[in-house]
C-alpha cells in the first residue's frame, strides 16, 4: 500500500508494515524533547518530575524508558523567577538521575534550535516534545509533533504514545524565491492561502523541485509554523542539503525516505515560489497574512528578531544586511535575540553583532525572550520575527503584534513603520 513519508515513519515507529490516515496506532518514540519550563511548578504543584516519580512507582519502575533518548533544555537564560530557577534545578536533577541529555549555558539557547544544531534530529525519526513547536524537526525529514505536560510524563514512563495517523496535504513547490523572501514568507503565504480549515490536525508535506532552492534555516521556519496552522506536523523529505546539515551537526547515519508516488493526500496545492512577496501577518492570527505592502505606514514601537521561528544565522544575516550603515529610528526599540548560542557565536564571528549594535539594536543572550514574556505597553505595536500574534501575546490585550521575516522587522525598525525590506536592498 502506498504511503506518505509521515506514514512510513509512523509505521516503522509502530512496528507495522503499513499505516494509513485514520488508523489508531501506538508508536515508540525515537526521541523526547523537554523544555525546562515543564519542570517548574507552573502546570502542576508536584512538577513534572514529581508526577513522573509517582507514576513510575505505581508501575514498579524507578527509571524512565531510555534516558539517552531524552533531551532536556534550559530555554530561559538567566531564569527570571524563583519558580523557573527551581524548575531548572529539578531539570538538572532529572537529567543526572535519569541519565538524560541536558543543555544549558553556552551550549544552549532555544531547545528546538539546540536539538537540530547538536545532531539530535535525524531524518526518518519519530520525535515528540513537550512544546508545541516540536514540529520544527520535520524540516530534517523527521515526524515530529508537540505534546502537553501529562502526555510528556506518559512518554517518559513508557516510551510510547498513541496517535491517530493524520490525513495529509502536500505543497508542490516550484520556482525560486525572490529577493527578501525566505521560509517565513513562504509559510505565512501558505497559511494565508489555505487558512486553518485547510490544515487543522493534518500533516503538511512540502515537496517538489522548489524545495532544493530553500535553505535548511528556512525549512525549519516553515515546519516550525505548522502548529500555527494547527497542523499535527509538517515534513520535508531529506535531500543533499539535509544530509550536509545533519553531518555538520554530528548526527548519525540515516536511511533517506520519501513519499510513494501514489501516496494519498486530501489536497495538493501548487506553489510557485517566485510569486510570493515578503509577507506580514496582521494581529491576531498567524494566518492573517498579506503582502507587506498592504501594511505600509503602520507605526511601530518595537521590533523583535528572535525565537525558534526566526532567530537563526540566516535571519541575523538578513537583519544585518538591512541595518548595515543605517540606524534604528529614535524612539523605536529593536531587540535581537539569537535563538541559540551557536547562532550567536557565528554571528559574532561574521561581525554581524557589531553591525546590529552599531545600528542601535539591543542584542541579548540566547533564549525564548520576548516571545514568552510581556514587553509591550497598551497601544504599542511590535513587528516580530516570531510565530504567534494572538491577542495579548506580548503585552496587554490593547497591544498588537505583526509577524514578518527578520529583514522586514529590521527595515520597519529603521523607518519606524512597517516597511518593505526590498526598498532597502
Amino acid at each position, binding site marked *: 500500500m502506498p504511503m506518505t513519508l509521515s506514514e512510513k515513519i509512523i509505521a516503522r515507529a509502530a512496528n507495522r508494515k503499513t499505516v494509513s490516515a485514520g488508523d*489508531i496506532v*501506538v508508536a515508540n518514540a525515537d526521541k523526547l524533547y523537554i523544555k525546562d519550563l515543564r519542570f517548574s511548578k*507552573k*502546570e*502542576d504543584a508536584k512538577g513534572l518530575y514529581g*508526577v513522573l516519580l*509517582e*507514576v513510575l512507582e*505505581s*508501575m514498579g519502575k524507578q527509571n524512565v524508558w531510555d534516558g539517552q533518548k531524552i533531551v532536556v533544555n534550559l530555554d530561559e537564560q538567566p531564569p527570571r523567577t524563583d519558580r523557573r530557577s527551581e524548575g531548572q534545578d529539578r531539570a538538572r536533577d532529572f537529567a543526572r538521575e535519569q541519565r538524560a541529555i541536558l543543555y544549558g549555558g553556552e551550549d544552549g539557547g532555544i531547545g528546538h534550535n539546540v536539538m537540530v544544531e547538536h545532531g539530535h534530529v535525524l531524518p526518518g525519526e519519530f520525535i515528540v516534545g*513537550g*512544546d*508545541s513547536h516540536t514540529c520544527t524537526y520535520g524540516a530534517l525529514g523527521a515526524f515530529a*509533533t*508537540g*505534546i*502537553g*505536560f*501529562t*502526555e510528556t*510524563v*506518559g512518554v517518559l*514512563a*513508557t516510551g*510510547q*504514545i*498513541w496517535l*491517530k495517523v*493524520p490525513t495529509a496535504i502536500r505543497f508542490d513547490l516550484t520556482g525560486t524565491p525572490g529577493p527578501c523572501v525566505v521560509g517565513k514568507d513562504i509559510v505565512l503565504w501558505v497559511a494565508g492561502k489555505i487558512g*486553518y*480549515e485547510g490544515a*487543522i*490536525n493534518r500533516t503538511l508535506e512540502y515537496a517538489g523541485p522548489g524545495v532544493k532552492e530553500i535553505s535548511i534555516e528556512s525549512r525549519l521556519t516553515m515546519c516550525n509554523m505548522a*502548529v*500555527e496552522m*494547527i497542523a*499535527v506536523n509538517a515534513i520535508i523529505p531529506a535531500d543533499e542539503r539535509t544530509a550536509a546539515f545533519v553531518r555538520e551537526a554530528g548526527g548519525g547515519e540515516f536511511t533517506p525516505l520519501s513519499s510513494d508516488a501514489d501516496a494519498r493526500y486530501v489536497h495538493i496545492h501548487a506553489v510557485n515560489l517566485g510569486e510570493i512577496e515578503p509577507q506580514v501577518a496582521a494581529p491576531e*492570527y498567524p494566518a492573517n497574512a498579506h503582502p507587506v505592502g498592504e501594511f505600509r505606514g503602520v507605526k511601530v514601537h518595537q521590533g523583535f528578531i528572535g525565537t525558534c521561528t526566526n532567530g537563526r544565522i540566516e535571519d541575523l544575516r538578513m537583519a544585518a544586511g538591512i541595518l548595515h550603515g543605517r540606524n534604528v529610528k529614535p524612539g523605536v526599540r529593536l531587540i535581537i535575540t539569537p535563538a541559540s548560542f551557536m547562532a550567536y557565536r557565528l554571528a559574532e564571528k561574521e561581525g554581524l553583532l557589531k553591525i546590529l549594535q552599531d545600528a542601535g539594536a539591543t542584542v541579548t543572550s540566547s533564549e525564548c525572550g520576548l516571545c514568552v514574556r510581556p514587553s509591550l505597553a497598551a497601544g504599542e505595536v511590535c513587528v516580530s520575527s516570531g510565530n*504567534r500574534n*494572538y*491577542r*495579548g*501575546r506580548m503585552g496587554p*490585550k490593547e497591544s498588537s503584534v505583526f509577524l514578518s521575516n527578520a529583514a522586514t522587522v529590521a527595515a520597519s525598525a529603521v523607518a519606524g513603520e512597517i516597511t518593505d525590506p526590498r526598498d532597502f536592498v
Partner: protein
Amino acid sequence: MSALTVRGRIWKFGDSIDCGNIDGVMGGVDADFKNRVKPGDILIAGRFFGMGASDEHAPRSLKEAGISGIVAESISNIFLRTLINIGLPAMECAGIANAVNDGDEIEVDYLGGSVRVLRSGRLLAGDRLPDFAVQILSKGGLMPYLKSGGQFK
C-alpha cells in the same frame, strides 16, 4: 447513561480561541466568566479551539472551574489530547455552534459521540473518540490510567 455522559447548562464561545486566551478559565475572552461558571456546566466553542501553545495550565483551569465537558466545532490536536489526558471529556462536533444557544441544557455522550439539545430534542452526531481516549477518560485521565496498569497495546 454511561459514565462518559454529561448533562448540564452550556456556555457558548466563538471561533479561533487560542490556548493563551483560554488560560485563567477563558480569562482572555471574558475575565468575569470564572465567576459565573458553575461546576457541571459544559463549554461550547467554535472552530479551532485551543490552537497555539501546548501549556497545560489553560485546560487545567477549565477543569478546576468544574467544567464537566467540552464540545467544539473543531479542536487543535494538542489541546484535545491534553483535555483527555487530564480527564476532561472533549469532543469535536460539526454544527454544534449553531445548534445551541447560551444557557441551553444539553446531554453529551462522549462514548457514543452524540449531543442532545434538551430544549429542542435535536440530536447531533460528533466525532467518536478513539478507544485509547475513551479508556483514558474512563479512568479519569492518563496518570490514573497508567497508575492502574493501563498500557498502550
